[in-house]
């Protein structure tokens, strides 16, 4: 991926294209947002706390784990463990945002790093898929991120306000939207048989890791091991 992204025609057009492309994938964001909002109410978070956490932390997996640690009495709130848990669960973003490098100029600095706040699994995946097709831009990434952000805020607040009035999304199969989304994005990423080895290694190590450790370590471990296997295979091929 040494390719430099071609200059985007217009940021606004790219932003709109990114938001539109992410419409199907934010269905899973919405389903998880509703569930999280309902659970957050049960865990004792106020509506203001839901808005602050969704708006500032903006990371689904970390927010779910935070609910397990949350206490209704402020005095017993485990502030340190909450922060450490968020850090550990979000470590996988190191891998995600690293792959967005070709979108930015080589000397990109703090200003571009600020834009990473809007990166989620969903708009990241849509953007890297777009990059594989020779397109993709910062505007595209931001458009999808903005849509995911609005959707996450709206659905977590709705979940909190309506509480248990909301039916369990799993009843309608909506929990499967997450798996379906990333399965389809993975298939869209297929380029050649050279992909088979890194994907298989990633899948296998993620399955093993998910059995051994809780949380989202399997994504980081599978992603690291699989991509290293792919790079090693490339090296061996070039040597031959």
């Amino acid at each position, binding site marked *: 991926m*040494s390719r430099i992204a071609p200059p985007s025609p217009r940021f606004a057009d790219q932003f709109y294209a990114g938001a539109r492309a992410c419409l199907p*994938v934010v*269905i899973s964001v919405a389903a998880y947002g509703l569930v999280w909002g309902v659970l957050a109410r049960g865990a004792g*978070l*106020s509506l*203001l*706390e839901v808005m602050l*956490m969704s708006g*500032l*932390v*903006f*990371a689904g997996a*970390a927010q779910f784990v*935070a609910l397990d640690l949350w206490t209704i009495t*402020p005095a017993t*709130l485990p*502030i340190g463990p*909450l*922060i450490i848990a*968020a*850090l550990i669960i*979000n470590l*996988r*973003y190191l*891998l*995600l*945002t*690293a*792959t*967005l*490098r070709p979108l930015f100029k080589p000397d*990109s600095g703090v200003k571009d790093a600020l834009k*990473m*706040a809007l990166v989620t699994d969903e708009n990241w*995946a849509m953007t890297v898929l777009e990059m594989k097709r020779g397109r993709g831009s910062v505007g595209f990434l931001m458009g999808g991120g903005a849509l995911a952000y609005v959707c996450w805020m709206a659905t977590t607040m709705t979940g909190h306000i309506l509480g248990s009035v909301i039916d369990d999304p799993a009843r*309608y*199969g909506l929990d*499967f939207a*997450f*798996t*379906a989304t990333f*399965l*389809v*994005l993975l*298939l869209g*990423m297929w380029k050649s048989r050279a*992909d088979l080895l890194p*994907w298989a290694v*990633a899948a296998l190590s*993620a399955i093993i890791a*998910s059995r051994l450790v809780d949380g989202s370590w*399997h994504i980081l471990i*599978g*992603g*690291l*091991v*699989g*991509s290293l296997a*792919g790079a090693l295979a490339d*090296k061996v091929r070039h040597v031959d």
Partner: protein
Amino acid sequence: MWTSPEALYAIAGMALVSFAVKAAGLLLANRLPRHGFAAAWLSHIPGAVLAALVAPALVTGSLAEIIAAAATALVYLASRNLFAAMACGVFCVYLARLALGA
């Protein structure tokens, strides 16, 4: 009660570390060489991360999820339409859970 200082500290801390990790990925990648092994490694990350996201969910899923995953993949490969594939997957898992009583 709207909130407490403790809750604000916790949320601010969580927000800070979450953003720091996201920003660090891009800033660290900028320091990697743009050719050779490091570039090849970066190029393989997206597929590997997606495979790592999906695989455990499929292996631990019930028969309903496996049927729905197969349907999702087939519809996508036939139509190349993300939305159609997802809608089919969700509908299939709904039907399969009803049918299998899961």
